[in-house]
């Protein structure tokens, strides 16, 4: 059982009319993994997630979830998945607890089991003191936590989270990350989409970068940075009217942005020393470790996608 991947896709394609949302991707997710889809808007992440969630049928290619075929065994597969959708679809007029119990019944759980499970999950997502209140007035972070609790109600083999922290404030995001990290530690398999690099770095063992419906890179966060980027990045700002680009040649890969210049280098401090030795005087200098964001921007470009 543990040998079998929970998700296996070969040449997976999803078209909507003339538009190809997912353009032939291959992937495998093993039990216990935390797997991420990273990519700009419109990269095909959510379309892929909906196919994995068995609510959208592939146009072509092969897809197996928990070893089953979504076209034939959709309901059986969905019975073992937990889904946290991008758009909240909680019942705003029901209480927090009722949202959990009514949803549990969709999975055929007995009333007693549904109630007991709701109590466990209220503690897990720290909504115990709001259990009896209606959902509508809750904050965005509380609603997300409830949505995640609801996704856990059937004790799923695989949890799908589509942009779990989009739109949340930093405190709410960190609390959510911490809860998801706990799930990971318990061995729950997580598959998530995000366009936050820090989220991918925090939560994922392995991730793929998607762009234009294709997978453009795959690996652990560290290995992606190692492959597509240098260990350190120097951010330099220069006074108005100074164009230093030519003078930086040879220090590292130079990426001139409108407001600053990025230098990709193995050793940030050495690079800064070299800049000063060449007589260039930046108005500000920041040496940082390179992040997934640098990888992401290198792979998917800097053009704004809406």
């Amino acid at each position, binding site marked *: 059982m543990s040998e079998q991947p929970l998700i296996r896709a070969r040449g997976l394609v999803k078209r909507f009319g003339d538009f190809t949302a997912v353009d032939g991707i291959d992937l495998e997710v093993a039990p216990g993994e935390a797997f991420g889809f990273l990519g700009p808007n419109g990269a095909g992440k959510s379309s892929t997630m909906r196919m994995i*969630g068995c609510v959208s049928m592939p146009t072509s290619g092969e897809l197996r979830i928990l070893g089953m075929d979504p076209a034939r065994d959709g*309901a059986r597969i*969905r019975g073992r998945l937990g889904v946290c*959708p991008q758009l909240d*679809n909680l*019942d705003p007029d029901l209480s927090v607890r009722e949202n959990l119990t009514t949803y549990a*019944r969709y*999975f055929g759980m007995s009333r007693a089991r549904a109630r007991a499970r709701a109590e466990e999950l209220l503690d897990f997502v720290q909504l115990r003191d709001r259990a009896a209140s209606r959902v509508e007035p809750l904050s965005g972070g509380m609603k997300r936590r409830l949505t995640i609790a609801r996704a856990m109600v059937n004790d799923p083999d695989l949890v799908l989270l589509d942009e779990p922290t989009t739109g949340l404030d930093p405190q709410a995001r960190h609390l959510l990350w911490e809860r998801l990290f706990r799930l990971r530690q318990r061995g729950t398999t997580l598959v998530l989409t995000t366009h936050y690099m820090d989220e991918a770095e925090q939560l994922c063992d392995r991730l793929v970068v998607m762009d234009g419906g294709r997978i453009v890179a795959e690996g652990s966060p560290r290995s992606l940075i190692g492959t597509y980027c240098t260990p350190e990045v120097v951010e330099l700002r220069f006074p108005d009217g100074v164009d230093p680009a030519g003078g930086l040649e040879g220090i590292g890969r130079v990426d001139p942005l409108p407001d600053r210049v990025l230098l990709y280098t193995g050793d940030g401090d050495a690079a800064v020393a070299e800049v000063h030795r060449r007589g260039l005087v930046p108005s500000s200098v920041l040496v940082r470790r390179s992040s997934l964001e640098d990888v992401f921007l290198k792979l998917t470009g800097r053009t704004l996608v809406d």
Partner: protein
Amino acid sequence: MVSPAVAVLERHLCLYRRLWRASAFSSFVLPVLFLVSFGVGVGRYVGEVGGVGYLAWIVPGVLASTAFQMAVGDSTYSVLGDFKWVRGFHAMRATPVGVRDMVVGGLLYALLRVESAVVVFLVVAGVFGALRSPWAVVTPVVAALLAVAVAAPVMGFSASIDHDSYFALLFRFVMIPSALFGGVFFPVDQLPQVVRPLAYVSPLWHGVELCRAATLGVAPPWPVWVHAGVLLVFAGAGGVWAVSAFGRRLRD
């Protein structure tokens, strides 16, 4: 193990428990007020219709019309809302609940609501002495058939539209004419010959005539199986439409 359709019904009931105050008046009190004002007030001027007092004559009409309106009411905004605003159907879609379960669960809920109102109404009508035949006991069955015959196609309609302004068309051109000319307040043969077919194609008229036949113990204008058959066709075709409209809406 609970059937998914029953789980869907339970969600409706759970929501109803939160919001019942808003609808209790219109489903229980309003029909009775209607009965009193028309049956007793207007009835004094009308005298007898078809050999019985006006009150006894309109009781089955108001009963069927109440079932009709509740069935429409439970399958319009709540259905569109669960696609568009609350996205409750999308939440169900991610679980083992299938499209057919969503439709059946909604119909079961409409049935429960209609039946509870019908029972209250029948008790009140009985107190007024408006039930003239033991056949009155089958009126809840007729009301159930009528409710499904109306709720199923209206659910299909609600799942097919993208904006609630379409409901104004439904209310203006289907519901109100049905209620006015469906034989609730006066016999359809009072209408000009050319207009009568409008009543014949409305499930309400068939429901009204069956209910009237039951509470008064008289034969309906058409054979019982024809009236019942029309309602069954509405229910069956409406159910097929609703399931396919739900499926289309949730597929991508």
